[in-house]
């Protein structure tokens, strides 16, 4: 009696599973929260236009790399190119395709949400824990018209493996020798101070709630949550506010032959925001692994092509900078290099 009921249930489940095989193309991706608002908008639009479903889980750049390495996802998303050392542990060669450019801003929670000017060394000292209060002399000197309170600073950083962290620490290592030696560069760091939030949304959420909190997030997260962010002094000496324009300026660099070696941090551009970065999609170079159906691979490559071309129109409204033409050309070359059974997928 009981057994037969269980058997029926099992049959129903198998039927459901079988039904699942007949559905439209579904892709699974995982990775960075930095571009997640842009990607989820793109996937939504692509689904409306072409019917392909994309399940994107924003678990951080580290998660995207690991899940691609474990072949549990079709593509990974990462704000930083995988280091050569890490790349060795991947089972097969993979390619990194630039998708869009964004900026990391320093956001904070102060009464009145004032717009603050900060210099690189101040930012480094805040996150090193050397500067502990908002009315520190150095900050006051830069912002004489702002009434800075005697509140303690609470640093908020990422608790998960983050490309945003990697970009931010890359910048800090360039501008602060102290940071370089004491903390270094990476997706997960041994932070000297602060509390950790999960993903860009987690950091934004914590800073939003913590009086005196200060953290680093992608520009769109500060904008969508009406949070103030600092003007940062760039290499040329100007105080730049992160925006579509300043990100595009920073992205307008000479692209090296190997586009993955490009770095936008501490930009030379006169009006460029100093903590900008491209963000990447990672796929295996040879797509015929684990019996991946050709139709699925074609669908995925077409989608990524669309994302780097027609999809770019959705970037600016979310304050991400479109890929410069030179970068799009490079992206096309990389996309054409993806093969299925040796033959290029895209013509």
């Amino acid at each position, binding site marked *: 009696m009981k057994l037969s009921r269980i058997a029926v249930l099992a049959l129903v489940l198998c039927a459901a599973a079988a039904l699942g095989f007949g559905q439209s193309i579904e892709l699974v991706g995982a990775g960075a929260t930095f571009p997640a608002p842009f990607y989820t908008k793109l996937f939504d639009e692509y689904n409306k236009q072409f019917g392909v479903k994309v399940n994107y889980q924003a678990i951080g750049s580290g998660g995207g*790399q690991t899940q691609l390495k474990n072949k549990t996802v079709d593509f990974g998303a990462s704000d930083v190119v995988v280091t050569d050392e890490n790349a060795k542990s991947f089972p097969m060669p993979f390619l990194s395709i630039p998708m869009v450019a964004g900026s990391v801003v320093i956001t904070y929670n102060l009464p009145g949400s004032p717009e603050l000017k900060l210099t690189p060394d101040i930012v480094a000292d805040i996150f090193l824990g050397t500067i502990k209060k908002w009315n520190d002399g150095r900050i006051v000197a830069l912002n004489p018209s702002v009434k800075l309170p005697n509140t303690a600073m609470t640093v908020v950083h990422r608790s998960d493996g983050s490309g945003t962290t990697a970009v931010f620490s890359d910048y800090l290592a360039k501008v602060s020798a102290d940071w370089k030696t004491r903390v270094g560069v990476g997706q*997960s760091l041994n932070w000297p101070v602060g509390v950790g939030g*999960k993903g860009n949304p987690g950091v934004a959420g914590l800073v939003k*709630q913590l009086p005196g909190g200060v953290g680093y997030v992608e520009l769109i997260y500060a904008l969508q949550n009406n949070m103030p962010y600092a003007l940062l002094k760039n290499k040329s000496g100007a105080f730049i506010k992160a925006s579509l324009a300043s990100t595009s300026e920073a992205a307008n660099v000479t692209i090296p032959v190997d586009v993955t070696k490009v770095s936008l941090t501490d930009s030379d551009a006169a009006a460029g925001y100093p903590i900008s970065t491209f963000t990447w999609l990672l796929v295996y170079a040879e797509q015929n692994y684990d019996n991946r159906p050709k139709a699925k691979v074609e669908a995925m490559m077409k989608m990524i092509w669309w994302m780097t071309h027609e999809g770019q129109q959705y970037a600016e409204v979310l304050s991400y900078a479109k890929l410069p033409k030179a970068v799009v050309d490079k992206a096309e070359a990389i996309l054409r290099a993806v093969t299925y059974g040796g033959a290029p997928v895209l013509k």
Partner: protein
Amino acid sequence: MLGGIAVSVLLIAIFFSLLLSSRSALVANGFRFLTGATWDPVTDTFQSLPFVIGTLLTSLVALVIATVLSLALGVLMGEYFRSGLFAGIMRTAVELLAGIPSVVYGFIGLFFFVPAVRVIQTAIGAPPYGVGIFTSALLLAFMILPYSASIGREMISLVPADLKEAALSLGATPSETIWKVTLPYARSGILGGVLLSLGRALGETMAVTMVIGNSNSLTFDILGPGNTMASVIANEFSEASSNVYLGSLIEIALLLFVISTLINIAGKIVVNRMAAV
């Protein structure tokens, strides 16, 4: 008959799976895994002390709060209100507490306890994190409360009536009887309940990870952020990039498995001994 053995086989398989999956890390980290305080994925240095201490601190603070509250509940339901409507309501309330999922506790933690603790911290001049070891210990206390309360109530009701009546007839007030006769008698059973609750507290993941502040440095500051073994696994597992990183997280899971099993066994032994008397 096979069914029974299957469970034991499952348990052994779990243990060995954890052991095998973490072997690269076991070798690489060595003994310093247990004694060192640096968790640095940049240099591939993985040492578990910050999380072990974090787990112990949150659990112990939670235990203190929970023991006081569950003793009160145990006395209330074991002595003063053994039956009746009020007893029924309290019992149902405590049992419902046990059924609430961890993530819902974490949610309430974020929206009620964190701002509340922040108010307290501002009042005493400490940094107003809101999140931190104390907040998660507070949540934990309420989560493990039902277990220690029900065991406590049982232990208290097991105290022989003639002992209590002897005290009362000698002129002790009811509360003095409870304080000086009942509780000391049930002491070891209550201790067993405490140990079992500790076992449960060690493994709590979601509520803790939502309010503990996720700071991987070794700290003893209860009002500040920290991290526990379960919480760091939840945060970092899906993105551990290198084999040693992943293996180290599994090593923490193994450590957690061993510690909670030992505490649970200890608790069961103590409770069984009390109930057998």
